[in-house]
């Protein structure tokens, strides 16, 4: 009962204030200020009073900031829809009011006509009724946690580092380092604003070790559209690395000359071990020069 009375009193007060010509205040970013009009980034232009008061939005005192594109402003409208006060700031102002409330004051010579380019609003159906139109992807720009989990080829060296390179970071091959989570998978979580669209590829730290497609050819970059969600999980599979496809000759790396042909698969045998030799030729060979027991020279 008390709440109902309070609500009625509030409505009555609002009606009285409107009837008395109370001002309306909205804040936003300026698009232009010229020829007696102020334009906001909604595209709406409003008449400005000849004696408009211009103040600093934070201090309320006079300001050296001039109304201009990109400047943030809080506009006070009188009952006729004329802007009588502009409070300016170079930094964003907290949202105040709604441009829907002052849309009727916007000046435009032509009568509005519908725009067929714009999508129609889709009403959410009542509970229990099926959705007749497929819900479209929604982008609000808010941060979304995106987790990438990639399965790598089984012959990927265990100590390999795996990275994601994207067109957003200029295809830097070490842009997003990933963490190994088991023998075949790497994972990383990054924060992207919804609406972000980017292309990406996995690699092992250089573009020479980039992933290739399952058919052995260079892979077309994957594309990710970040839609509104609390968390998104992207699961991908790398079929092969460019520098380590099965049975291939390894591609040389920049600034590393290939080592001479070595018939042995062990790259760091001790120097004092004799090389492979055919058997059946008498006693074992002596140690190499410089090793204990080697013959004098």
């Amino acid at each position, binding site marked *: 009962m008390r709440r109902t009375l309070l609500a009625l009193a509030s409505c009555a007060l609002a009606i009285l204030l409107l009837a008395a010509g109370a001002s309306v205040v909205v804040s936003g970013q300026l698009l232009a200020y010229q020829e007696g*009009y102020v334009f906001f980034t909604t595209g709406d232009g409003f008449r400005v009073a000849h004696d408009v008061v211009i103040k600093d939005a934070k201090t309320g005192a006079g300001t050296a900031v001039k109304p201009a594109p990109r400047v943030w402003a809080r506009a006070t409208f009188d009952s006729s829809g004329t802007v009588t006060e502009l409070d300016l700031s170079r930094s964003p102002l907290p949202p105040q009011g709604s441009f829907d409330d002052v849309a009727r004051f916007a000046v435009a*010579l032509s009568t509005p006509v519908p725009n067929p380019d714009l999508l129609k609003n889709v009403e959410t159906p009542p509970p229990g009724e099926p959705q007749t139109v497929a819900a479209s992807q929604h982008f609000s720009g808010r941060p979304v946690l995106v987790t990438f989990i990639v399965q790598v080829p*089984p012959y990927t060296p*265990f100590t390999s580092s795996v990275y994601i390179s994207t067109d957003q*970071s200029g295809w830097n091959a070490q842009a997003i380092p990933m963490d190994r989570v088991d*023998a075949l998978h790497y994972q990383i979580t990054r924060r992207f604003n919804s609406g972000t669209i980017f292309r990406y590829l996995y690699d092992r730290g250089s573009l020479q070790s980039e992933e290739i497609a399952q058919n052995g*050819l260079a892979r077309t970059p994957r594309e990710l559209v970040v839609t509104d969600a609390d968390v998104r999980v992207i699961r991908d599979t790398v079929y092969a690395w460019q520098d380590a496809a099965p049975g291939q000759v390894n*591609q040389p790396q920049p*600034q590393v*000359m290939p080592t001479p042909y070595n018939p042995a698969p062990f790259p760091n045998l001790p120097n004092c071990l004799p090389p492979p030799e055919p058997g059946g030729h008498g006693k074992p060979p002596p140690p190499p020069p410089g090793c204990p027991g080697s013959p004098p020279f």
Partner: protein
Amino acid sequence: MRLRTSDGFTVTGDAFSMDLKLNRFMVAGHVTLHDATGTVKGAAISDFLDFRRIYFVPVTSEPDRWTFLDGDLAHPVKGRVMPGDAFYFPQVSDHPSITGTGAVVDTKTYVRFINAHTYFLDAGVPLGTYVVNFSSSQYFAQNTLSGASVDLTWNMAGSPNALTALHLRYDPTYKTYLSVEQHLVGDHEYAIFSVNPATRAEKWWNLALYEKLGSRFQIQSFTQYYTQQNWLQEPRAAQQTTYLSATYAFPHSYVTATSQLTNYNVLGPGALEEPKAIAGSLSHPSQVQITATSFQNRILKWPLFEQIYEGYGFNHDSVGGGQYLNGFPGYWPQGGSMFAPIPTPGLQAYGAPCGVQPSKFYTYYCPVYTTIWNTVFGFNLFTPSIKLNNPPSPYQTYYLNASFNKQYQWNSLPHWISTTSENFSINRQFSRPVNTYLSYQILNVGDHYINGGYQPCTPVDTFYCPLSFTSFRGVSTQHTTSLGLNWVPSPEFNFSLLVRHHVDYPIPVPGVFGLPGNNILGQPLYASYLGQPPYDATGEVRFKVLSHALLDVSRTFYWYGNPYRTQFWQPTFVVQLLPI
């Protein structure tokens, strides 16, 4: 500001902004739109290039709203409702990274700033012309430079198909230096040339070429030319290697032909060679390999996948590089007599003792193989992520991964190499930021000679030939148990720890086996090698240091168990600055 478009109209106004991702530009404040049909004044104009829609707020007697469709500036659609974001300014930092007095924008490709300045500690640094390439083509990013700890890139010229860049780089090997790189890019091809480091005596000249012909065939090459020279003076040493690769894709497999041609001494006899200025290595080996590889195929409906591959190839070298008739490299002891070995004039000497023996101590074998053919066959079996339990919480689930690889390589010089690798891991995500895994790997490599092979080292039970090594005959087995932990409380911070225990044969002994060399960043060149210390632990921490950069620091600690108890750190921290 003044804007001129390729469509032929000009716009002046107070402020300009362009959202390069949205591909929309806007001019606001005292706007004048001028084209062949006349001039109109207004408050703002916004051009959505992808949609061919221009939204204009003219101010004639009063403001209005006009829309130009498909570039037709002569017939505005008046009063049409505009999208809500038609005139929104993109939110950007108050501290620009680059400023300029003008800019040329090629949509979806690049921006070239004129009279550009960048800022360091609020001080302007003049750049002249600076190009920001934001093309989605990854070919622009293909590069031929090696890794570096820090790379500051000045893109000094660009076009829709080219980019010229000067790099100021730092790495622990070459310290601070400059490099130059040129990119030429097409829809299905690229060519990249670089000199790195350009301001050091040791220079690497690189050329990478790529062409995709149709949807099933591609060919690429990478040529590297190493010179030791002051600036562009006559080189003291020069080496060259070229890698060629061609791939043809079939519906369920592909065939790749690769070739590597190397010349270890382009200058010829008389070139520098340490420690003696003699002829230098005149070796110029060549290598060709043709490999057919299947796709990864699921076996029946089991959680098991297979992939097979088979290849044929040959190695050829009629000079020999680093191989000696008795297998030993040259030896110049302090104060002792010199041992100058006889180089093998080919790839490998193996067979009966030669008719002429130049040494009474060592046996030299013939024939010398200048060409060695090989056949490779291998297969992979693996099973990704089998769920081991089914608890109510996903943070209590354990997953098993396993893989098995077997490869044989038969050589025309009669020996064959078999490699077997088995890998098992169990992992669990304990919470959103914490996951761990336990892994066990067995790697078995056997180098088997049909006749003879690896000889025992002597004298037995010495520092150079410990007991555990005397029975080594070309077969090694490495068992590695790994425990990994990742803690990622936020996308801007990461800590990971990897602790490994190796139980290997031959048993590692400090000082007998060499550690692998490091790349110029200080990271080991290869991961698995004989003589690995039985224990190692690698810690890595990554955190945000700038609004668009992460710092990554890692270091490995190795130690031996009894009886040696030797321990040591990896020589340096590995530090990298990574963009976010």
